[in-house]
Structures are given as C-alpha cells and as structure tokens.
C-alpha cells in the first residue's frame, strides 16, 4: 500500500503544477456517508481507513443515533436522521423515508460547516447506494460522488434488474411477484 508521501510525484508534472491547481493538490477531503445500518457502516469505515492511509482527509457522517455508538479514528460527525428518539430504526422503509426527506438539508449544512471549520473544500462525497438522495445533493453542490455498495455484486444486481423484472412480468410495478417462478 503506497503512503501519501510517496504519491506526491504528480506535483513534478509541470502541467499539473500551476498556481491555480495548488488548492486541489492539497490532501483531498472526502465526506463518507453510509446507510445507517451496521453492515453498511463497517465496510465504508474500512474504506475510509484505507483512504487515510493514502493521505486523504476523511470526514465520516453518521446519523446522530449511530454516531454515539462508534469509536473514534476518523473525523466523526453526526446529523439527525429525521426520526424521533423512540422510533424503530430497524424499520427500513420508515427509516429510509425519513432520511430522504430530512437529511438532504442537514447534509448541505454539514458540508458548509465542515468546510468552514476544517478550512478545506470537500471534493468528494462517497455515499452508500441506499442513500440515493445524496447524489442529488452532491450534484447541486458540485461535489464528485462515487456510489458505494457495501455488499455482494449479486445482491446489487438483483436491485438493478428491477425494471427488467417488471418488463418480463416476474413482478408488477409495486414489486409484487406475478408468478411463482425464478429468474
């Protein structure tokens, strides 16, 4: 694994070294946004550690409910998830609905707050596939955004195939199966 210091050879490329490029040459600052469930948080935290190894600055954004639960290591921040204290966070539909309605605003505010306090611009938002609304926020703010999937490719493929499953008549437009068959 290369260390950040070994990667500065790019600065020897004259065409990359103009004065206007200097702010970008500083350590990139990544905001990591997991879906707030255990099996999504751990892999993104693992990826974040590897990015830090490469000299990248990482701010990890948990929901407040989960923020209290994790240990330190990376800049940890928390934003509200839109649910009340006593709500059931294992109800994925309800959780995801609250997230998509309340978190975009909180995320924008967070980006501004982190940029102000750290003095660096957030240039990347690595968001979980389950937080689709975050890609709209990234686009609005002009931040580059890769989509992070914490599980198997086969499982993600089963989600990506929904339009075709509907077209083939395996499920209807509401996801209910039409025939007891396989695909």
């Amino acid at each position, binding site marked *: 694994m290369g260390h950040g210091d070994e990667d500065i050879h790019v600065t020897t490329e004259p065409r990359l070294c103009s004065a206007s490029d200097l702010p970008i040459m500083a350590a990139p600052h990544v905001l990591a946004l997991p879906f707030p469930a255990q099996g999504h948080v751990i892999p993104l935290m693992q*990826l974040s550690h590897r990015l830090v190894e490469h000299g990248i600055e990482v701010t990890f954004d948990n929901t407040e409910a989960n923020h209290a639960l994790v240990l330190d290591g990376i800049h940890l921040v928390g934003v509200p998830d839109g649910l009340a204290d006593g709500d059931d966070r294992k109800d994925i539909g309800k959780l995801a609905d609250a997230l998509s309605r309340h978190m975009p605003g909180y995320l924008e505010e967070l980006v501004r707050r982190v940029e102000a306090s750290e003095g660096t611009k957030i240039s990347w938002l690595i968001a979980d596939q389950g937080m689709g609304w975050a890609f709209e926020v990234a686009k609005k703010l002009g931040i580059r955004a890769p989509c992070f999937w914490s599980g198997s490719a086969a499982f993600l493929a089963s989600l990506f195939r929904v339009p075709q499953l509907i077209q083939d008549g395996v499920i209807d437009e509401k996801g209910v199966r039409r025939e007891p068959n*396989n695909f």
Partner: protein
Amino acid sequence: MPPLHTSRLLWNNAGAPEGQPGVFQLVTRNNEAKDLAEVIVGNSFRDAEPGAFKLHPEILPIGPLVADLQFKKPVGHFLPENARCLEWLDVQPGRSVVYVAFGSFTVFSPHQFEELALGLELTGRPFLWVVRPDFAAGLSKAWLDEFQHRVGGSGMIVSWCPQQQVRCTPHDFRGTKSVVKRT
C-alpha cells in the same frame, strides 16, 4: 449469476410485510439516483461472483475491504465485541464449529429461537452463535439459561463478535452469508 427466487428479493425480506411497498419504492428511487454517481464501487471481487460482475460490469470491485490486516483499527461496531470467542475458537478442533449470525436487523420470535437452538444442539457440533440483546424479544430467560447450561462448553453465545477475526480462524465456515453481509 445464480437463480434467485422472488421471495428472496430485498423488499420481501426487510421487516414487516406492510413495509414492503416503501422498501420497493426506495429501491426504484435509488436505482434512478445512482445514475448521478460517476462510478459504482462494490465491496466484493470478481472471482467471488463472476456472473454478477458480467451482468453488471459497471460495478467496480474494491473488496473484500479490511481496515488493516491486524484488525486493530476501529470500524464502527455498534455493539461491544466479545473477544473471548476468539480464545474459545482457538481450542476447538479445526473445521468443527458452526458459526451462526443474522446481522444487525433480523429479529426472531421466541419460537424460532428455540427451534434453532434445539437444532444446533442436535447437530452435536460446537457452535458460535451471535445473539444481539434485541434479537429475540420475549424469550424466556429461564429457558435460555437452561439451554446454555445444557450445551455447556460446546456452544458459545455472544451478543456481538469481531466477525472478520472469527472468519480468519481455521474453521472454514461454509454456507454462511457473512463474508459480505447485507445489513
């Protein structure tokens, strides 16, 4: 990609049936939103599931992710991990232990719990079972105490475990979904 029965699709396995339309909506919305991301990265590798990567070559494999090879860095476990199970595993015969874990969302009824417990007992093999504090609400404590007493040293129940380390022990836990978990 192996066949998948419609009953195993995400929205048919995410909490109570009344939540299914909401989860399905989330899936379709995230399917559209992911097109705003510039790349999709997944916690898997080609050799693990060549069929899925062939079906969706746009998924860039970056896994399996580990924070560090010594498992020293905090990765955001919500529950304290019981490291005693590693010592316990070390003294079990190689390839003998059944590892049982259902992630962070799944809940069992007391009846389901008792059935699985009795099944594990019947296998006559040592087992390591992760039972979160909120895993089986309503389960009789007296029943569980008696079960644990009965299986004694051959079965270990922990509330959470350092899974990657558990899976690095020479027990070859075939057939579990836990290399790349869902939630």
